[in-house]
């Protein structure tokens, strides 16, 4: 990056470090922090949407929809979520390729032949002729969907509980005014549920942050991948010979996560304080008393 870096063997001390930390592969490492933040930014709203759908479905009056919602919210109980992270992307990938196989391929050959999953070239996802970045985006999309499905189920749990916690009298009053069920949901239920949902949702956000290293298991080149590549003594992506420095790289990653959770805790604490203001809850009452002695 710097002009004096052309011959790193003569450098030492700080100058050497500044060169070492600005190599092309290190730039990719720094960019991968952005990948993690991007995943968080995309996944959180989608998961919230999935959660809202799941919670509404489990409150539905139509039995099959209700069963679907209940099964979806119960799905994550009892089963480690890492299983879903491994299962959902492969299952989705194969499901899509199978559908395309049915639609695009002429052959009637079954997709499962022994231990192989075979589809014709036209049904491959993404097409083997497509450029590198399409493959990257496809892998990232599958990862986002896997995260959204799992965290949507958790969010559905939280939102369902929050909807149950809204005082029944509020909804009954709205019904007495002649509002339709749809109006009751939109005007009364949804605005009031947030204060009950916030503790659960902030907990979920912290968990989502701490689940992002699992991207590595899905084959995304995230911070864990680069920390292993750059720190390892014998990896392909790196020319400079050095002993095993993975410990230091992982320490950097650890500090990044500690910083993320610390900042989130602060921000969420502020938001909670803001939302409890004037609420008829224990916390809101405590806040009122603290201000007016």
């Amino acid at each position: 990056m710097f002009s004096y870096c052309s011959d790193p063997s003569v450098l030492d001390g700080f100058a050497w470090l500044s060169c070492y930390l600005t190599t092309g592969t290190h730039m990719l490492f720094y960019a991968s922090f952005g990948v993690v933040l991007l995943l968080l930014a995309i996944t959180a709203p989608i998961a919230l949407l999935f959660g809202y759908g799941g919670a509404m479905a489990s409150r539905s009056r139509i039995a099959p929809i209700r069963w679907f919602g209940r099964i979806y919210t119960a799905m994550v109980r009892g089963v480690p979520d890492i299983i879903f992270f491994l299962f959902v992307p492969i299952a989705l990938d194969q499901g899509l390729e199978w559908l395309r196989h049915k639609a695009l391929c002429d052959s009637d050959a079954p997709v499962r032949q022994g231990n192989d999953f075979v589809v014709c070239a036209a049904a491959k996802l993404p097409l083997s002729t497509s450029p590198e970045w399409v493959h990257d985006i496809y892998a990232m999309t599958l990862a986002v969907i896997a995260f959204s499905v799992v965290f949507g189920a958790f969010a559905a749990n939280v939102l369902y509980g929050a909807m149950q916690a809204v005082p029944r009298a509020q909804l009954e009053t709205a019904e007495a005014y002649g509002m339709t069920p749809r109006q009751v949901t939109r005007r009364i239920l949804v605005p009031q549920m947030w204060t009950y949902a916030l503790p659960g949702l902030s907990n979920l956000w912290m968990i989502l942050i701490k689940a992002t290293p699992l991207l590595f298991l899905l084959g995304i080149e995230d911070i864990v991948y680069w920390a292993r590549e750059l720190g390892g003594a014998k990896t392909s992506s790196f020319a400079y010979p050095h002993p095993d420095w993975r410990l230091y790289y992982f320490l950097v990653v650890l500090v990044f996560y500690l910083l993320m959770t610390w900042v989130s805790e602060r921000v969420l604490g502020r938001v909670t304080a803001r939302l409890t203001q004037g609420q008829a809850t224990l916390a809101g009452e405590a806040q009122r008393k603290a201000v007016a002695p």
Partner: protein
Amino acid sequence: MSCAQTILDYGLRSLGIGERLLPRSDFTLCQQVTLIGSGLIWNLYFAFFALLFGFFLATGLALAKTSTNPWLRKPADGFIFLFRGSPLFIQFFLAYEALVLLPRAGVEIFGLTVATSWLAKAWAGALIVLTLNTAAYSAQNFHGALMSVPKGDIEAAEAYGMTGWTKFRRVLWPTMLRLAWPSYTNEAIFLFHATTLVFFSGFPAFQQRGDSLYYASYFAGQTFNPFVAYPIVAGYFILCTLALIGLFGIVNRRLNRHLPGAARRIRYRPQVIR
């Protein structure tokens, strides 16, 4: 090959007993169920010992966190922040890299050579990480419970002349456990689920002796078929989770036996991975 023979061959494969080679082709359902079940031994091992050691460590940490002495309180706070604020996945990586750096030949302490190579093995290294992790999470639970022990209970104990250890042992501790037990049950379930991370992070599976998810992903990788192996491991975990809830429910009833009607059913509130 009959199913009974498969169970004999692979039932204890995860411990290194029985057939050495894993099946390579023509996987039967029986093989998958047996091998994944065999791997479950590791999950149960990690969960059991991490909970056992973590429980006592967590009690100590919770007490240190309530202490007025900053030399006790600050380290406890730091420890809890470190382990609750970072992903378990990274903790595994970091611990493995750190343990591998220990000298092969062992460390000399007071002229004695202490072997260290066993620390980098999953059975010890991962167990240490899981123990510290669950201790941090449970300490937070226990601390919250300790803070909500009724003032009257403590005053009554003091009126009887109880102090120090006696007061803690007979009044504070049982009440703390009683209050913390529902959330501690959730913590135990999550620790059990977190044991699946061991062989997916830093720790390698020595001679392919892995946990249930390790074998499940082996089958899924070999057959390109996720629809058999993963539901099997999911089924095992649902059964084990139900058993765990049952066991902790018995303890909960025992802790609440002096309060008729207080032993409400423990509600399982998921909290996911860390």
